[in-house]
C-alpha cells in the first residue's frame, strides 16, 4: 500500500483529528507518518490525574494579582492516556538504539548499557532525594560520590575530581577555567591554547568560551601531533594544550612524553579529553602521561546510556596542584576510614560525609551537584567490572577495532594503517573517486544492512572519513557480519547501477533520505511555525 502522504491522507482524518489507535507509523505495520501529539489532540480529552489534597480551592484571581495572570491556559495537546501511550510507543519503534543492534559510531563508544544501572538509577533512595537536603539526610549520596571520586582517580591517576560538569563539553570549559585560574594565581596572562587539527569540535569551541585563542597544530604523516610544528607554536603565551589520547584518528600519541615535557617547559598545562579513555582503561593513565586536567565522558567509557543525545556526565579530574581551584561545594569524607558501604548502614552516629568548597574554587558550574543519577550508574558499572574487568574492556575494545581494520583494509582506504586503539578511521575516498559512492552513501547503505552507521566526515583531517568504533560488547560474529556488510556495499558500488543504488539508500527505513537543505531554508522549529525564509542553505557539512 502507498506510504506516501497521500496514503496518510487516505486515512481521511482532518489534520487536527488524527486517530490515536491507527498504528501505520509503526514499522511493524507500515511506513506512514506518525501524527504529532497536537494532531491527536481533541479539546476536552485528558490523561492527568492528581492526588486528592483537601486544600481550599481558591480561584486564580484570588492567588495571582491582576496583570500577572495568563489570559488563556497554555495550549498543549489534549489526549487520552491510551493515545499518549500509543503515540510514544510507536515513536519508539521508529528509533534505532543500542538495544536493537550494533552502533559502531566512532568517538561515541556506544557499548551495551547494563540494565542493572537502570534499576539503580530508579531506586527511590537515590532518585527521590532533594539536592538541597541537609548532608546528614543524604549520607548515602555523599558516600557514593566520594567512592566514585576515588575510583576515577585510580583510573586516571589524578588527585581530585569535580562532578559538576554535565557532559564532556562542560568538562572542557571547566578545565579551561581551572587552567585560567591556575595561571591567574601565578599572575601569568597567557592567551593561547593549542589543539591538534584532528580535535573534536567541542575543543576549539570550549577554548573560545574559556577566553583563549585557538592555535591549531597539524597532524603528521603518522596521524599524530607534528612535534616540530608543536614546538614552533609553544611559548610563554601558551596556557596549555588539549589532547585526546588515543586521538580522534584512533591512534595513540606515541610522543606523549615529549609533548608533555615541551608544554610543561613553557609553563603550559596539559588537558586530557577523556572521550577516548575506553581504549586505555587499566593500560595507561592520563596522569602518568603527564596530563594536569582530565575530563571523562561517563556516558561513553562507563556505559551510561546516551538518552538520544543526553544526559551525560563530564567529571573533571585534576592533579594535586589544581585541586584547590575545583568548583564547589564538593562531597568529602569527614572522618577517614569509613567506607561508603559502612556509612551506608547510615543513621547511627553523626555524619561521615559532608560538603566542602576548595580554597580558590572557580565557583559553581552546575545548578546543583552535576548529573547525579548518571554518576550512580557509572559507579555501578565500575563495581561490576572492578580493576580487572576494566582492563578487559580496553583490551577487547582495541582487539575488536583492529580486527575490523585489518579485515577491511582490503576494501576501504585506511589512511593510517597501523595498530589502532578502540576505533579505526576508514575512508571512502577511493570508492568516491572510482564509483561516486561517498562516505554518506556507505552510511545509509549500512542501515539497510542492519547496522547503525559509523561517524562520517570526522575527523575533518580525513577525506570521506568513516570512523568505526565497534566497542567491546560486540561479538566476533557481529564484527564479521558488519565487515561483510561493508564489503557487500563496496562490491555493489563497483557494479553498474551500484552507485545509484547506494544513493537511493536507505530504502527499508520508515523514512528515506531527508531534505536537510529545506529544513534549514524553510525553518519549522515548532508545530506552530509558519515557513520562514532564512535565506541561504545553512545545513553545513
Amino acid at each position, binding site marked *: 500500500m502507498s506510504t506516501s*502522504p497521500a496514503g496518510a491522507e487516505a486515512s481521511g482524518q482532518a489534520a487536527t483529528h488524527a486517530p490515536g489507535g491507527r498504528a501505520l507509523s509503526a514499522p511493524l505495520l507500515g*511506513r506512514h507518518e506518525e501524527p504529532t501529539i497536537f494532531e491527536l489532540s481533541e479539546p476536552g480529552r485528558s490523561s492527568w490525574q492528581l492526588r486528592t*489534597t*483537601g486544600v481550599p480551592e*481558591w480561584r486564580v484571581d484570588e492567588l495571582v494579582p491582576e496583570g*500577572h*495572570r*495568563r489570559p488563556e*491556559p*497554555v*495550549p*498543549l*495537546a489534549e*489526549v487520552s*492516556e491510551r493515545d499518549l501511550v500509543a503515540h*510514544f510507543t510507536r515513536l519508539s*519503534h521508529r*528509533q534505532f*538504539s543500542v538495544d536493537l543492534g550494533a552502533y559502531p*559510531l566512532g568517538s561515541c563508544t556506544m557499548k551495551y548499557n547494563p540494565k542493572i544501572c*537502570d534499576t539503580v538509577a530508579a*531506586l*527511590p533512595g537515590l532518585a527521590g532525594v*532533594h*539536592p538541597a537536603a*541537609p548532608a*546528614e539526610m543524604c549520607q548515602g*549520596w555523599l558516600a557514593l560520590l566520594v567512592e566514585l571520586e576515588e575510583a576515577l582517580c585510580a583510573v586516571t591517576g589524578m588527585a581530585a575530581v569535580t562532578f559538576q560538569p*554535565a557532559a564532556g563539553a562542560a568538562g572542557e570549559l571547566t578545565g579551561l*577555567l581551572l587552567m585560567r585560574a591556575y595561571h591567574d594565581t601565578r599572575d601569568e596572562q597567557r592567551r593561547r591554547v593549542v589543539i591538534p587539527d584532528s580535535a573534536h*569540535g567541542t575543543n*576549539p569551541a570550549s577554548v573560545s568560551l574559556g577566553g583563549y585563542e585557538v592555535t591549531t597544530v597539524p597532524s603528521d604523516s603518522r596521524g599524530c601531533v607534528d612535534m616540530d610544528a608543536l614546538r614552533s607554536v609553544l611559548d610563554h603565551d601558551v596556557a596549555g594544550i588539549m589532547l585526546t589520547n588515543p586521538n580522534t584518528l584512533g591512534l595513540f600519541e*606515541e610522543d606523549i612524553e615529549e609533548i608533555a615535557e615541551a608544554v610543561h617547559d613553557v609553563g603550559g598545562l596539559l588537558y586530557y579529553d577523556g572521550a577516548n579513555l575506553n581504549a586505555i582503561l587499566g*593500560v595507561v593513565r592520563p596522569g602518568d602521561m603527564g596530563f594536569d586536567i582530565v575530563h571523562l565522558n561517563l556516558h561513553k567509557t562507563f556505559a551510561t*546510556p546516551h538518552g*538520544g*543525545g543526553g544526559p551525560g556526565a563530564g567529571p573533571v579530574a585534576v592533579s594535586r596542584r589544581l585541586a584547590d581551584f575545583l568548583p564547589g561545594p564538593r562531597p568529602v569524607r569527614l572522618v577517614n576510614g569509613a567506607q561508603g*558501604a559502612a556509612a*551506608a548502614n*547510615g*543513621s547511627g552516629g553523626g555524619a561521615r560525609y559532608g560538603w566542602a568548597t576548595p580554597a580558590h574554587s572557580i*565557583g*559553581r*558550574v*552546575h*545548578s546543583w551537584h552535576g548529573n547525579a*543519577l548518571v554518576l550512580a550508574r557509572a559507579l*555501578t558499572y565500575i563495581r561490576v567490572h572492578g*580493576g580487572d574487568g576494566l*582492563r578487559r574492556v580496553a583490551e*577487547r575494545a582495541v*582487539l575488536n577495532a583492529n580486527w575490523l581494520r585489518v579485515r577491511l583494509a582490503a576494501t576501504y582506504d585506511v589512511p593510517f594503517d597501523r595498530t589502532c586503539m578502540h576505533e579505526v578511521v576508514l575512508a571512502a575516498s577511493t570508492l568516491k573517486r572510482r564509483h561516486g559512492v561517498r562516505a554518506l552513501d556507505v552510511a545509509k547503505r549500512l*542501515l539497510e544492512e542492519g547496522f547503525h552507521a559509523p561517524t562520517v566526515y570526522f575527523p575533518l583531517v580525513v577525506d570521506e572519513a568513516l570512523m568505526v568504533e565497534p566497542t567491546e560488547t560486540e561479538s566476533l560474529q557481529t564484527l564479521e557480519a558488519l565487515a561483510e556488510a561493508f564489503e557487500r556495499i563496496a562490491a555493489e558500488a563497483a557494479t553498474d547501477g551500484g552507485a545509484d543504488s547506494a544513493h537511493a539508500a536507505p530504502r527499508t527505513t520508515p523514512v528515506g533520505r*531527508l*531534505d536537510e537543505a*529545506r*529544513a534549514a531554508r524553510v525553518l519549522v522549529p515548532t*508545530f*506552530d*511555525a509558519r515557513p520562514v525564509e532564512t535565506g541561504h542553505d545553512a545545513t553545513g557539512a
Partner: protein
Amino acid sequence: MADYLPHTEEDVAAMLAFLGLADLDELFAAVPQALRLAGGLELAPGEPEPDVLDHMGALARANRAGDLVCFAGAGAYDHEIPPVVRALAGRSEFVTAYTPYQPEVAQGVLQAVFEYQTMVARLAGLPVANASLYDGASALVEAVNLGTAASGRQAVWVSAGVHPHWRRCLRTFARGSGHEIVEIPLADGVTAWPGDADSAAGDGPGAIVVAYPNYLGCLEDLAAVRRMADARAATMVVAADPVAAGILQSAGSVGADVVVGEGQPFGTALSFGGPYLGLFCCTMAQVRRLPGRLVGETVDVEGRRAYVTTLRAREQDIRREKATSNVCTNQTLMAVTAAVQLGWLGTRGLEEVALRCARGTRYLRDAALGIDGISPVTGNTPVVRELALRTAVPARTVVDRMTSEGFLAGVALSDLVGGDGDRSVDADAAEHGLLVAVTERRTLAEMNGYLVALDKAVRP
C-alpha cells in the same frame, strides 16, 4: 569474573591470530613501556550484579531525605510523575540511542523533541525552543552569551532575584567570556533597578536578566524590564519558572528576547540535582545565535513529513571556535520525558498543577504567618511557587529539627546564598530565611502536620 564481554577464549585467540599478534599486550605496543600501568588499577576486583545491587541499595537506604515529606524547592520540585510517564520515557529505544545523526532511523527521538520544542515555545510565548541544555543555570549562561553577542556589549545586569546558584554560575563562566556581571539588589523581594540617572553612568548593559517569579517567589514587573532593555538596546532575558507559567503571563508576551528555565518539574525526579533539563527559547531574530541543537520539520525523498536537526552551521562540530556554544551532548532524554509529561498534563492539567501549587503556597503562608516566631522575608509582595519565611531561630536549625518530625522543611537561605550574604536579602534573612515550596502533591493533612512541627521548631 563478572562483565558484559562476549569474547570467548577461542574468539580472542582466533582474533589475535588473524592480527598476527602473540598476545593482547601487543595491541598496546604504541604505549611507551615507561608509562604502562604495572600491577593493574588500584580498584577492588569486579563483583557480580547482585552484590553490587546490595551495595547500591544500602547507599540508597542511607539517604534518609528520601523518606521525608518534601517542602523544599529552590528550583527542584517534588511533582507528580505518573507511572505512564515513567514507562514511556523509560523505553529503551529512547534511553539507549545516541544523538540523531542518522535521521532515517531516529524519527522517534526527533519527533518527540520537535513536540517538546513546540510545547516549551508555547509555554514561553516565543517562536523557537532548542532541544535542551544541561540545566537552568547553563541555559542562563548561554542566554547571556547570546544576549551580549546580540547587543555587542559585555556588561550584564542580573537581578539578585535570579537563583543564587545560577548567578554563581554566571560569575564563574564570566571569567572566560569576559562578561561584566552587575547584580541588582532586591527590596522587599523585588528588583530595585537603577534609575536612568545611575545607569547613564558607564557603558549600558548588553543584557538584562530577571527571574519570574524570582527565587523568593515574588512577581517582578516584566514590562518595566522590557522598557529598560529598549532604552538601552539590551537583550531581555527572563528566567521563568515553567510550572508557574501555567497560570502566569508568558515572558514572551511581555517581550522577552530569551526565556530560560529549569525543566525538572516536567517529569524528572528530584535526582539529587541531576540530570535536569535546561529550557531555552528565543525570538526568530536570534535563531542563528541559538545554542545547542534544534530539530526542524522537513520531508524525505518520498515527500513524507520527517524531522532532522537543523541550522547545524551554528554548532561546534562545524563552526568549531566560532560556534555559538560548545554544547554537544545535552539532556535529550529529559526533553523527551518533558514532552511525555506535558502530553499527559495537557492544557488543563498544567494549569491545574500551577493552580494547586499556588493554593498550597497560599494556605501554608497564611497559616505559617500566624505562628509567632515566623514573619515574611519579602513583606507583602505577592508570591507564587516559593515562600520565604523569617524564623526566630536560624533557618538551618529549623530544617534540622524538622527532619526528626519527618519533614524536609525547606531550604535555608544560608545554604543558597552562602555565609558572606547576598544582594537578594538582608543579613538577618540570610541566616533566618527559610525558603518553602508547596507542590500539588502536598495534602492539607501534611501541611497541618508541617505547621505543628514548625511551631515547635522555631521556639528558641
